[in-house]
C-alpha cells in the first residue's frame, strides 16, 4: 500500500520550509531511519528520515522548492513493484481540532459582601498558657511526628545542635537520628532529596536556617515540588513543609535580610503561611504538616522569642485561608501578616488615642488568601492600608490593592496605601537599617492620609 510522505514540522513553531535537497531518487529502496531529504526551516537545515520502508515511487515536490507547507505530500512511498496511485495531492494538516479558548476568569464586584469564616479560633473558656513562638513551633512538629511516623525533620543543625535558632530543641532526643536529620550545608541537594522522599510517600519538614538559603533550592521547590501534582495529572505530588526564618533579623546585612512572601505567594501549587503569634505558629504549622501539598512556612527570627497565649488543648490547629481579626474598627482596615502585624497593632493603638478606629486583619496565610475578609472589612471602613516588610514592587500589598480595586472599587473613599520595606538591599549600618524597614510611624501616617486627617 502506498504511503504518503509529508512535509514534517521540524520545530515547535515551523509552518513551512524549503525542500533543500533530496538524498533519494525515484526507484530507490529505503529503510526506516534512512535520510530522505534535507529540509530548511527558518532556523536550520535538518535531515529528514524515513519512518517506513519501501521504495520511492514518486517525488512530488522537487528539491529547491520554497514555502512547502507542513503536512504537504512531498513524496510517495510504495512497496516493491507497486504502482504509484493517482490523485495524491496536498492534504489538509491533520492536527488536532482547534479547541475553543478557555473562558477567562473575570472578577466582578460581588453582589453582596462575601461572608468570611468568622468562627473564633478557640471557644470561650479554653484554658491558655503563655508560650514563645519558638516553643509553639517545636510543639507543633513534635505533636505531628508523634502522630505520624512518615513525618520527619531535615535541615542544617536541626539535630545535635538543637536547631540554629533552637526551634528543634529536644527533638533529636525524642525521635532519634532517623527522623531528626542533620544535613550537610547543601540546600539544593537536600531539598531535592526531601522532595523525592515526598513523592515516595514521606512527609518531610525541611528547615532552612533562613529562607535566604532556600533560594539555592528554588528550582526544587518550584519545579519539582509545586508543579508535580499538575504535571502528573493528579497522580503524585509533594506533601511537605519548607520552614525557617524569613525577613530581616537585626544587623545581618543584605544577604540575610529579605522577605520572600511575595515570591512564593505567586506560585500555583504552593501554599504559603506566615504566622505572627505563637498560637498561629502552632496551629498553622500543624495544619501545614497535615496538608497534602507543599507548604512554605515563613517564620521570623525576631518573633521566635516573643510570648503569646496559646490554647492549652490537645490538638490545636488553625485552618488555612482564614484571616484573623485582631481588632475591630470602623475608620480604616489595616491588613498585614507576620512581623508586619507588630507595626499594624502598635499603629492601631496609637491611632485609637487620636480617635481613629482601625480594624486590623492578620492574613496568616497568603496562599490561599482570605480576600473575602479584606473585602468585607473595606466595604465597612472604605479605606485600606497594607503593611509588610518586603519590597514594594510586586509586593503582597500591591496584590491586595488590585483585588480591592476589582472587587470593592465603589466602596473606596481613598487610594489604598502599601506600607513596605524600602526599595533597597538591606544596609548594615544601624541607622540606615532602621530607615530601610517599615515603621509604626509610617503606618500611622498612611492611615491619616487615607482618612484625610
Amino acid at each position, binding site marked *: 500500500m502506498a504511503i504518503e510522505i509529508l512535509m514534517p514540522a*521540524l520545530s515547535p513553531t515551523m509552518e513551512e520550509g524549503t525542500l533543500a535537497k533530496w538524498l533519494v531518487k525515484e526507484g530507490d529502496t529505503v529503510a526506516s531511519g534512512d535520510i530522505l531529504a534535507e529540509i530548511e526551516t527558518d532556523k536550520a537545515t535538518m535531515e529528514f528520515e524515513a519512518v517506513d520502508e519501501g521504495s520511492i515511487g514518486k517525488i512530488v515536490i522537487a528539491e529547491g522548492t520554497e514555502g512547502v507547507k507542513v503536512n504537504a505530500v512531498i513524496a510517495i512511498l510504495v512497496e516493491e513493484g507497486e504502482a504509484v496511485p493517482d490523485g495524491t495531492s496536498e492534504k489538509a494538516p491533520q492536527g488536532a481540532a482547534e479547541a475553543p479558548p478557555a473562558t477567562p476568569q473575570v472578577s466582578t464586584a460581588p453582589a453582596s459582601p462575601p461572608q468570611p469564616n468568622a468562627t473564633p479560633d478557640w471557644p470561650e473558656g479554653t484554658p491558655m498558657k503563655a508560650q514563645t513562638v519558638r516553643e509553639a513551633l517545636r510543639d507543633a512538629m513534635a505533636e505531628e511526628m508523634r502522630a505520624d511516623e512518615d513525618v520527619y525533620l531535615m535541615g542544617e543543625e536541626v539535630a545535635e545542635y538543637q536547631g540554629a535558632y533552637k526551634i528543634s530543641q529536644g527533638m533529636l532526643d525524642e525521635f532519634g537520628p532517623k527522623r531528626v536529620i542533620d544535613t550537610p550545608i547543601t540546600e539544593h*541537594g537536600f531539598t*531535592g532529596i*526531601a522532595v523525592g522522599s515526598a513523592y515516595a510517600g514521606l512527609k518531610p519538614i525541611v528547615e532552612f536556617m533562613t529562607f535566604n538559603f532556600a533560594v539555592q533550592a528554588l528550582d526544587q521547590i518550584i519545579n519539582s515540588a509545586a508543579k508535580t501534582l499538575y504535571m502528573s495529572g*493528579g497522580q503524585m505530588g509533594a506533601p511537605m513543609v519548607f520552614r525557617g526564618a524569613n525577613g530581616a533579623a537585626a544587623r545581618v546585612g543584605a544577604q540575610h535580610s529579605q522577605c520572600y512572601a511575595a515570591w512564593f505567594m505567586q506560585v500555583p501549587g504552593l501554599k504559603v503561611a506566615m504566622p505572627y503569634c505563637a498560637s498561629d505558629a502552632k496551629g498553622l504549622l500543624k495544619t501545614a504538616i497535615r496538608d497534602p501539598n507543599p507548604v512554605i512556612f515563613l517564620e521570623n527570627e525576631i518573633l521566635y522569642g516573643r510570648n503569646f497565649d496559646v490554647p492549652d488543648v490537645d490538638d490545636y490547629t488553625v485552618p488555612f485561608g482564614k484571616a484573623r481579626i485582631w481588632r475591630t474598627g470602623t475608620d480604616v482596615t489595616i491588613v498585614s501578616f507576620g512581623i508586619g502585624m507588630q507595626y499594624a497593632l502598635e499603629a492601631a493603638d496609637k491611632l485609637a488615642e487620636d480617635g481613629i478606629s482601625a480594624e486590623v486583619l492578620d492574613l496568616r496565610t497568603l496562599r490561599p488568601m482570605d480576600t473575602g475578609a479584606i473585602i468585607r472589612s473595606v466595604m465597612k471602613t472604605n479605606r485600606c492600608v497594607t503593611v509588610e516588610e518586603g519590597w514594594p514592587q510586586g509586593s503582597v500589598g500591591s496584590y491586595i490593592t488590585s483585588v480591592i480595586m476589582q472587587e470593592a472599587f465603589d466602596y473606596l473613599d481613598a487610594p489604598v496605601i502599601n506600607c513596605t520595606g524600602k526599595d533597597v538591599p538591606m544596609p548594615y549600618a544601624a541607622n540606615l537599617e532602621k530607615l530601610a524597614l517599615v515603621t509604626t510611624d509610617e503606618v500611622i501616617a498612611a492611615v491619616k492620609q487615607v482618612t484625610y486627617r
Partner: protein
Amino acid sequence: MAAKKSTKKSNTSAEELLGFYREMLLIRRFEEKAGQLYGMGLIGGFCHLYIGQEAVVVGLEATTEEGDKRITSYRDHGHMLACGMDPDGVMAELTGRAGGYSGGKGGSMHMFSKEKNFYGGHGIVGAQVPLGTGLAFADKYKGNGRVSFAYFGDGASNQGQVYEAFNMAALWELPVIFVIENNQYAMGTAQKRSTSTPDIYTRGQAFGIPGEPVDGMDVLAVKAAGQKAVAHARAGKGPYILEIKTYRYRGHSMSDPAKYRTREEVQRMREERDAIEHVRTLLLTGKHATEDDLKAIDKDIKATVNKAADFAKASPEPALEELWTDIYAEPATA
C-alpha cells in the same frame, strides 16, 4: 567506545534475549512513530527521542524487582515503555490528549506512573538526581529493601546538585543506582568540550562511591553491570555509579539539526554498534530464533505502535475544566 566489551551471555536465556529484542524494538518503533507524529504537527513543543539508547534502560529493567523505583530526565519515553507503562497512554500524552498518563497536562517531558513506580519525566537538567536520591531515602526510611534508579546524562553530570546528592547518598548509604547515560553530547556540546575528565564513573571516588563504565550498546553488558550495582545497593552498601556509554542517533530534540557531529559518525554507530542488531545477531547465530520468528515480532510491535498512535490521535483533548484541576490535593477531612 571506551567501555569494556562484555562477552557475558551465560546468565541470559533465549527467552530473555527474545524479550530484550522485543522491548528494544518496541522503544525504537515507538520513537520513530513519535517522530513521525511530531512531523505531522500532532506532537508539539519539545520531543526528545531515545533511539540508539534502547539497551540502557532495557538491560537495567531486567535487574529490577517489584517496588523498585526509577526517575529520569526529559528523554523519558524509553524508560516508561521499559518499566511496563502502556504505549497508548504514553503516546496520548505526547499528543496532549485526555487519554495520556497526565491527562494531557504533562507532555513528552512530564509523565509519571505511581503504579509502575515511575517518578518522571523531569525537565530541569540534573534535578532528578537529588529527587531519585530522595526516593531511595524513603525506601531506607521505610526499610523496605527497594532500590531506586536515578538516570541522567553526561550533560547533567556537570550540575552541582549531582554532587550534593552523591555526598548525601554515600553519607547516608542510600540504596540508589546513579545511571549516567553518556550519549556523548550534551545537546550540541561534545563531552570533550564540556567535561574536564572524560571518565564520569570515577566522579564518585571523592565520595567513596564505586563506579564502572559499561558498554551501553550491549544489553547483556548493561544487565550484568546492573545486577552488580543492584546487589550492592540492596545489600545496604549504599549508592553505585554506572556510566553507560551509549549513543543517540537522532538530534537532542526534534528541532536539532545536529551539525555538531558528522553524518558518518552517526552512520558508523548505527551500522557497527546498533544494540538491536547485536541481539538480533545473537538470536540468529545462536539459533534461538529464525528470521520468521523475528519478523513475527516486528509485525506484532508495529501493530502495538500503530494502535498507540491511533489511540493518541483518537483520544479527545482534555476537557477545558481540566485547566483548573490537580493544582492542589484536597486535605483529608479530620
